[in-house]
């Protein structure tokens, strides 16, 4: 079993007074062998969730289970691996790429060299590149190496955090193809994080939408895209698919459309999205509940955290 499960996970940065809760009681499941895409604006807590999963940041609350077992009590062989955003900083510039990959191959395994070559070939690079340094490769090739390194530990789950955002557009496609191929071939579970909805749409079986530390919508990808239930998801979709017009809206809609993203240090009370919500109390006057009570995620398999998820 390699289902990755976040149960009530919270992560807090900083002290009691000036800190902020970057991830707030998040429940999220990456089913075995599936890809869950996680979208949300920057600062919504996506990377924090990812880093908590691989143990780079301690949890403040909740637990993370892999195949039913806590990832904290894992043995030396890490079943969870991560690929990072920036190809130029994800590889040690002073190590050959072969050494970088070899380091991640579990110790005591025979035939390390052969393993490195096998991994390089798995990600579409020829084995004789092992002696090169990261500076001698393109950004896209570095991301392939980073993926090979992540695969070296035979992980069951891969967490990919914005892995195409720093790449030139002509190379993004190649990396996305590779992620899909490798995932299917090895049957990996993948948490695929991106701010780019089109990229997430292309690789994901399920989509989760995060806003200010909370998951506000989760469901099968086609359902979330075709029938989004949370107003924020609808905004995200509109922002990437509609032509940009001056938007001759009525004044109230105009005002919420121009509202600044909330400060994560002071999340709004009630529904965190309410100051920006085109269906919320700033636009419709019968919606005071949004200011006072935080909606809980509801629905299966397609859940949304909105008091008015049923309406459009």
């Amino acid at each position, binding site marked *: 079993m390699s289902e990755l499960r976040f149960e009530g996970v919270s992560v807090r940065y900083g002290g009691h007074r000036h800190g902020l809760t970057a991830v707030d009681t998040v429940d999220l499941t990456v089913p075995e062998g599936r890809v869950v895409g996680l979208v949300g*604006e920057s600062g919504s807590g996506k990377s924090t969730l990812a880093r908590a999963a691989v143990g780079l940041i301690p949890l403040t609350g909740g637990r993370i289970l892999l195949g039913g077992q806590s990832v904290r009590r894992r043995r030396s062989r*890490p079943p969870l691996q991560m690929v*990072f955003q920036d190809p130029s900083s994800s590889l040690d*510039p002073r190590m050959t790429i072969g050494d970088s990959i070899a380091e*991640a191959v579990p110790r005591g395994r025979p035939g390390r060299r052969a393993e490195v070559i096998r991994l390089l070939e798995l990600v579409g690079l020829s084995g004789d590149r092992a002696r090169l340094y990261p500076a001698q490769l393109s950004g896209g090739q570095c991301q392939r190496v980073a993926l090979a390194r992540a695969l070296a*530990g035979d992980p069951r789950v891969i967490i990919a955090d914005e892995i195409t955002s720093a790449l030139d557009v002509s190379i993004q496609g190649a990396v996305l*193809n590779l992620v899909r191929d490798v995932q299917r071939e090895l049957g990996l579970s993948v948490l695929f994080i991106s701010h780019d909805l089109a990229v997430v749409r292309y690789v994901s079986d399920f989509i989760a939408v995060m806003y200010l530390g909370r998951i506000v919508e989760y469901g099968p990808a086609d359902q979330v895209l075709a029938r989004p239930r949370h107003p924020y998801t609808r905004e995200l979709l509109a*922002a990437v698919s509609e032509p940009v017009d*001056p938007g001759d809206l009525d004044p109230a809609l105009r005002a919420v459309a121009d509202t600044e993203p909330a400060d994560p240090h002071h999340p709004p009370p009630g529904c965190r999205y309410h100051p920006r919500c085109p269906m919320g109390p700033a636009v419709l006057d019968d919606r005071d509940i949004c200011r006072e009570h935080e909606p809980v995620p509801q629905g299966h398999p397609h859940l949304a955290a909105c008091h008015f998820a049923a309406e459009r």
Partner: protein
Amino acid sequence: MPSPGKSKWAGVLRTPVGVSAATLLAAVLLLAVVAPLLWSDEAAAVDTGQILRGPSAEHWMGTDGLGRDVFHRVLVATGLSVGLALLATAIGVLTGLLLGAAPILLGARAGRVVSAMVNIAVAFPGLLLALFFAVVFGVGASGAVLAIGFALAPAFARLTQTLVAKVSGLDYVAAARIAGLGRVRLLARHVLPNVAEPLVVNATVAAGSALLAFAGLSFLGLGVQAPAYDWGRLLADGLAGLYIHPAAALAPGTAVVVAGLAFNLFGEAIAKGVGLRSAPVVFRRRDRDEPVAPAPAGEDRRSVLAVENLRVTFPGGTAPVRGVSFALRRGESVGIVGESGSGKTLTALAVAQLIEEPGEVTADRLEFRGQPLHELPDRTRQQLLGTSFAMVFQDPMTSFNPTQRIGRQLAEVSEQHHGLGRRQALDRAIDRLQAVRVPAAARRAKQFPHEFSGGMRQRAMIGMGMMGSPALIVADEPTTALDVTVQRQVLRLLQSVRAADDVAILLISHDITVVRRFCERVLVMYAGRIVEDLPAADLPARARHPYTRALLAAVPDMSTELERPLAVIPGRPVDPARVPVGCAFAARCPFADEQCRGADPPLVADREGRRVACWHADVTGGRPMMAEEVRVGE
């Protein structure tokens, strides 16, 4: 295979300062090793007949109180002086490394305690610390070595902390952690090698200071004790007879200075060589301090910008923009797309007259509102651009002065260009902030740039452009750093400015989906040329250039077919220093043939005014490029 970085060190030796410092340092170190072996006897030979003599042919620097030769004593003392200084430096660096690496070795909590202690220690003056430790460790050479070593440690600890913190934040260290590497191995393998350069530089400089400090302690009698001697001791001895014969004090004094200088200069030279990598092109923000001039007369009412055969070249023959032609009319929105390095930004900067020496801009025609920008006198040109042209950059943080309030910075434009008074100008600034929908504009005008979020800064930047009455806004990746919803806010704002005031907008982006949603017309750039010019509505179906079609197929959008692999454009973008003959895209193009490799296709317009630069646009045209047509791999 060479490790990156070696060549930098070799480069240091090619500068004049680097060579001199290295030679001097080598001489000092050589002397430190050989002098005690060769001349110890001469330096120790007592000659009671020649006590405290001045310089002579036999004794170049005279003799001391026992008639020993000062010159030889100074030479021999090099060994002890330099050796002890290096030892003290080594102690300082090692202690500093351990303290500085504490957060990694001990974990975050204990690390914080160590850092706090280090921060306190750094605040003490080094010499005071050295004196304190000298007393603690007792008088004598070993005491002095420890004293100076520990006095150096806090500074190194702080430096190490900073460097280590920076490197530890990088993803490859995180990746190694996830792979289960232990703390010590993490430090030795990934962290230390990547912070070594600045540490070595600082250690070299510190060795110079240690040398001076040591001389000081010995001079005060707290360091090396007789019968051993270093430069400090010799100085103290010589000073006693300063009035009889100054050479005995001057010689060791000079030695201290020269050796200290050798270390310092060498350290500085490496720092320069390692740190100052080439920054050949410097762009200057347009100077807004030009006085008011009368508005230009006799312009074509609808034409805003006309560019023909625009070239931007740099010395050495690189031409990142190679003959670009396009035009904008009032109220039009045109987008430029292309990969990084294709020349988009340089084109914009050339239009804005922001290319600095040694870059050079040439054009057959470069007219803004009917005025030839190239031929106008500086004053008139700046006045023209200052009132009716605005530019928005990707990172508005660098476009604002961080020390001035936003409102003031906007107001300044009107004080300079429109002759408004201070009060009026500020009122207009607030009015413009309102126009770009900055909430609570009057209050926010009093804030500093860092108090604005990214999207708000971008609005303020657009507001600054609207202090005059712009005819053209050039926006270079204005939304790349922003989230999609904020991106839409900013693009909508630009759209409404365009609609309300008939402003032309040139939007530059690497993201063809953004340009497609915003613009009426799209220019596709590749390797410094426009390769296609077509109405946005024609995308994707009617794109004719193989590069345009490959771009569209390589980037997923909301309608990309999920079951097909994305197209891959093989190879890399063209390096502007090495543009091939023939079509620049030929190496990556699935349709390239001999004709393509032999001659660069001209940009040709069809009957509808759509332009394309490809020999085979019509052969392959009309049909969207399939993934199978492009080779897989990079």
